[in-house]
């Protein structure tokens, strides 16, 4: 039977753990609120841009349009994987990592060449051994002070430059979309060539473009990629905080259960020790009598 001292120590250590997880839960709850606000306030812009691109793309022949729109002919795929910089957030990272791993396998089976850009440290840590030279770039520390400018300068500018140099033909973003603190959804989004919804109706007749349609489109498309990358980052950040909060909430609850169980065990052990002692005393008294 476990001795009392070691049980006492265990109870103390689990209590400490609970304290830490509780603090982490509070921190991520606060961060979640901020991230969520950011995700929400970023939405109108990306909707407007998408609508504009849709309306504009409807008037331009996709074959002769800018390269970012022409349907891909090549078989080189770039996956941009958005994970967290840190762990302890439940299945947040592993969901993305698992998805990327199987996607890479299935793409290579069908004869594609795959390269990967890792945004966030965790994804790269786990996959670097497996992906080896397929990893093209790694960007970390972006979600701290995330601004559109930084996202644009760090991630998108490289993507666009690599695409312009003909290093890949298709680019797909993989990230978690925030639904609620309890549910996140894995999202695949192809950004190059851009998939546009050309059914977008233009109200009040076709607008005039200034300068030419093709000039505006040539500026708007790279910007559209940038917007989507930023959107992915913001969503991923909000989901990360949500996932961490849920994970830490579970950890606090589990620690509580464990403390209760250990407490019962501790009391039983103590009682058993007392009973044994009593038995010995009574035994001793009895033998003196006889």
């Amino acid at each position, binding site marked *: 039977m476990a001795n009392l001292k070691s049980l006492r120590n265990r109870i103390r250590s689990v209590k400490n753990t609970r304290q830490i997880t509780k603090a982490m839960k509070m921190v991520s709850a606060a961060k979640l609120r901020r991230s969520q606000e950011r995700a929400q306030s970023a939405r109108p*812009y990306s909707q407007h841009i998408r609508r504009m691109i849709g309306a504009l793309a409807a008037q331009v022949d996709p074959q002769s349009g800018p390269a970012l729109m022409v349907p891909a002919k090549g078989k080189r795929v770039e996956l941009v994987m958005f994970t967290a910089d840190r762990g302890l957030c439940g299945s947040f990272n592993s969901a993305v990592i698992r998805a990327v791993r199987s996607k890479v396998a299935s793409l290579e089976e069908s004869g594609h060449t795959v390269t990967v850009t890792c945004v966030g440290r965790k994804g790269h840590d786990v996959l670097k051994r497996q992906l080896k030279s397929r990893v093209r770039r790694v960007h970390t520390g972006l979600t701290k002070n995330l601004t559109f400018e930084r996202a644009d300068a760090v991630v998108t500018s490289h993507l666009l430059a690599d695409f312009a140099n003909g290093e890949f033909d298709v680019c797909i973003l993989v990230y978690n979309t925030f639904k609620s603190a309890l549910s996140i959804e894995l999202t695949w989004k192809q950004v190059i060539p851009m998939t546009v919804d050309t059914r977008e109706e233009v109200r009040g007749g076709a607008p005039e473009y200034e300068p030419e349609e093709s000039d505006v489109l040539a500026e708007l498309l790279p910007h559209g990629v940038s917007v989507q990358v930023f959107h992915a980052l913001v969503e991923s950040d909000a989901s990360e905080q949500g996932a961490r909060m849920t994970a830490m909430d579970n950890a606090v609850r589990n620690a509580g259960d464990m403390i209760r169980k250990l407490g019962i065990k501790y009391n039983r052990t103590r009682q058993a020790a007392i009973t044994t002692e009593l038995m010995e005393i009574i035994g001793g008294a009895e033998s003196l009598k006889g």
Partner: protein
Amino acid sequence: MAATFQLDVVTPERLVISGKASYVSAPGKDGRFGVLPGHTPFVSLLTAGELTITMQGEGAEQHVALSSGYVEVTNERVTVLVQRALEKSQINREEAVREEKEATAKLAGIPQGGLEAVTWSKRCDFAKICLQIAQLPN
């Protein structure tokens, strides 16, 4: 014809202005233009510059510093999509001065035409415009 239109100034990070306006003047790539209610629909590129707005029911003009972006005008709404936008009251002078200095210093140290240079020159332009607007009388 409506006497106002819905005006939205949106950046990737937030909705800066949303409301009914009766006139805006914006820095188009091919020159400044003004929009009154009922304007023909058009889409234009914007350069960094000053956006002047007359909101409905207010006599005074509002001044907003814009970085480059797009404007979409339809019959009943004007949507300004830019990377950064600051209303006159939100401009912090010292910050703008600092930003301009930093950007100018960076620009001097890197080769022109590169990706980085474009980013920094955008920041420099924006800071200059902020300063110009901050100096306008109320």
